[in-house]
C-alpha cells in the first residue's frame, strides 16, 4: 500500500459507547517511524481511535470494542494480553498536560520505577537524558525536586513528553497535544516530534489542518466515526479522492 512496514494494524475496529456507535469498521495500517495525523471535525472519533491504541478507552463505562488492533503483530485486545505491557509501549500526551502530583524528578522517574528500576544512579541518568530529549533540561536542572505543578503549561507538556519517553515506548500518541499551549510552546512540541520520528512511531490527533500539513507523513481522515480516506500526507492534502475529504480540507465542513 505505501511500502512502509506497518507498526499498528487496525482490523474491522468498532467501538460503541452504550448505544452510540463511535467508530465504524475501521481498517488501516499505521506506518512505522512516521508521523501519522488523525484529522476530522469535532466528535468524529479521532480521540476514540487514538485511545483504542493503548486501551485507555476501557476507563469509560459501557464501552464495547470489537475487531483487532495489532501492535508489532500482537492483538492488544486479546484477553491474554497484559494491559500494562501494552501501555508501556506507548507514551501519551493529552490535550492539557497533567503532571503527576510530585516533583519534576519523580514525574520522570515514576514510569521507570513502577517498571522495576530502583538504582538511583540509573534513574538520575534517565531523568537527565529524557529531560534533554524533550529540551526541558536547561530550564529545570536547578529545581528537579521542586513541584512539577509550578511549571508553565508549555513546560508541563514537555515534561509529560519526557515522562512518556522514559518508560521506553515505541509509539507516541498525542491527543491534540498543543491545543492548550501558546504558539511558542506548540512550536517546541512540533520540533520535538520531528526529531523523534527517527526513533518512534508518532500518532497525533489534531484539529489544526496547518499543523497536520507541517507534521504529517501519513494522514487519516475521519468523519462521523468512519475512516473516509487515508494515505500519504501529500496525496491527501493536494489531491484528496473523496468528496468529503475535499470539503474538509478546503474548508467547507468543519
Amino acid at each position: 500500500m505505501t511500502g512502509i512496514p506497518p507498526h499498528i494494524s487496525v482490523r474491522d475496529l468498532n467501538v460503541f459507547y452504550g448505544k452510540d456507535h463511535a467508530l465504524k469498521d475501521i481498517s488501516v495500517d499505521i506506518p512505522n517511524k512516521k508521523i501519522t495525523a488523525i484529522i476530522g471535525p469535532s466528535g468524529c472519533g479521532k480521540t476514540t481511535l487514538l485511545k483504542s491504541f493503548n486501551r485507555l478507552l476501557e476507563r469509560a463505562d459501557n464501552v464495547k470494542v470489537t475487531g483487532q488492533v495489532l501492535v508489532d503483530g500482537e492483538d492488544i485486545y486479546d484477553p491474554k494480553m497484559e494491559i500494562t505491557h501494552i501501555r508501556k509501549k506507548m507514551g501519551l500526551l493529552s490535550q492539557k498536560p497533567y503532571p503527576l502530583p510530585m516533583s519534576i524528578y519523580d514525574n520522570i522517574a515514576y514510569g521507570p520505577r513502577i517498571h522495576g528500576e530502583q538504582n538511583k544512579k540509573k534513574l538520575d541518568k534517565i531523568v537527565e537524558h529524557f529531560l534533554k530529549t524533550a529540551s526541558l533540561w536547561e530550564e529545570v536542572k536547578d529545581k528537579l525536586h521542586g513541584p512539577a505543578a509550578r511549571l508553565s503549561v508549555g513546560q508541563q507538556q514537555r515534561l509529560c513528553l519526557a515522562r512518556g519517553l522514559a518508560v521506553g515506548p515505541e509509539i507516541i500518541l498525542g491527543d491534540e497535544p498543543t491545543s492548550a499551549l501558546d504558539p511558542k510552546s506548540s512550536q517546541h512540541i512540533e520540533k520535538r516530534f520531528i526529531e523523534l520520528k527517527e526513533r518512534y512511531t508518532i500518532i497525533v490527533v489534531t484539529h489544526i489542518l496547518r499543523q497536520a500539513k507541517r507534521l504529517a507523513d501519513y494522514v487519516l481522515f475521519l468523519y462521523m466515526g468512519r475512516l473516509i480516506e487515508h494515505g500519504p500526507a501529500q496525496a491527501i492534502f493536494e489531491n484528496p479522492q473523496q468528496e468529503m475529504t475535499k470539503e474538509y480540507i478546503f474548508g467547507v465542513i468543519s
Partner: protein
Amino acid sequence: MDKRYIEENIFKFLMAVSGLLIISVLLLILGTIAYKGLPYLSWEMVTQPPQNGYYLGKGGGILNAILGSLYLTGGATVLALLISLPVTLYLNVYAKKDSVSVYVTRFVFDVLWGIPSIVYGAFGFTLMLFWGMQASLFAGIITVTFLILPIMTRSMDEIIRMVPGPLLDASYGLGATRWETAWKVVVRQALPGISTAVLMAFGRGIGDAASLIFTAGFTDALPSSLGRPAATLPLAIFFQFSSPVPQVQGRAYAAALILTLIILGVSFASRFLTKRFTRHIVR
C-alpha cells in the same frame, strides 16, 4: 437607583451579616469557655487523675479523661482510616462509575451518617453483651469507629471524586496498575482533603459522649488496658456540670477548654504536616 445595583448590595449585605454571625458565635463559645474555665485551669488539672472527693471540689485533675479520650479517639480514627481509605479507593478507582455497588455503598454510608450517636452506643452495647464483654476502652474504640466511619468515608469520597480523570489516564498511560495509580497518584493528589476528612472524623469522635456512656464507661483511674473501662472528656465535662459545687462546675468549663484546645492542636498539626505535600498538587 438601578434595580440590579440594589440587588447586588442587598446580597452583599446578607453575606456580610451571615459571615459576622458565624464568627461571633464561634468567638462567643470560645470566649465563654475561656472566661469561665481559665480561672480553674491549672497544671494539676492536666497532669493528675481525680483524687478522692474531686467531684466535691477537692484536689486532682482530669488526666484520666484526657488520656482516655486521646487513646480512644486515636484508636478509632486509625481503625476507621484503615477501612475508609480502601472503600473510597474502590469507589473511585476500581469500581465502574455507574455500577450498583457504588450507588449502594454511597447510600449506605449516607444513611449511617445520619444515625444519632446514642444509637451507635446502644448498638455497641448490644455487641458487648453478645460477646460477654464489659464496658472497656476496646468497646469504646469499636463503637466510635462505627460512629466516625461514615463521616470519614463520605468526606474522603467527595474529595477523591474531584481528582481529574486525565490525571489517572496519565498514570495508566505509563503502564501503572490501578493500585499504583491509586496509591501513588490519587492519594497524593487528595492528601490535604484526606487529612481534613480524618480530622473531621477525629473531631466528631473526641467530642461525642452519647456513644460512650455504656461502651467505654467511666473511671477515675488512668487508662491502663484495652479491657478496662476508660474515662473520656465529654463524659468528664458532663459529670462535672451535674455537680452542685461551683468549683466543680468551673472545672467543667476548664475541661471543655482543654477539649477545644486538643481539637485545635490536632487541626493545626495536620495542616502543618500536609502543607509539605500540598505544593505538589496539580490544579
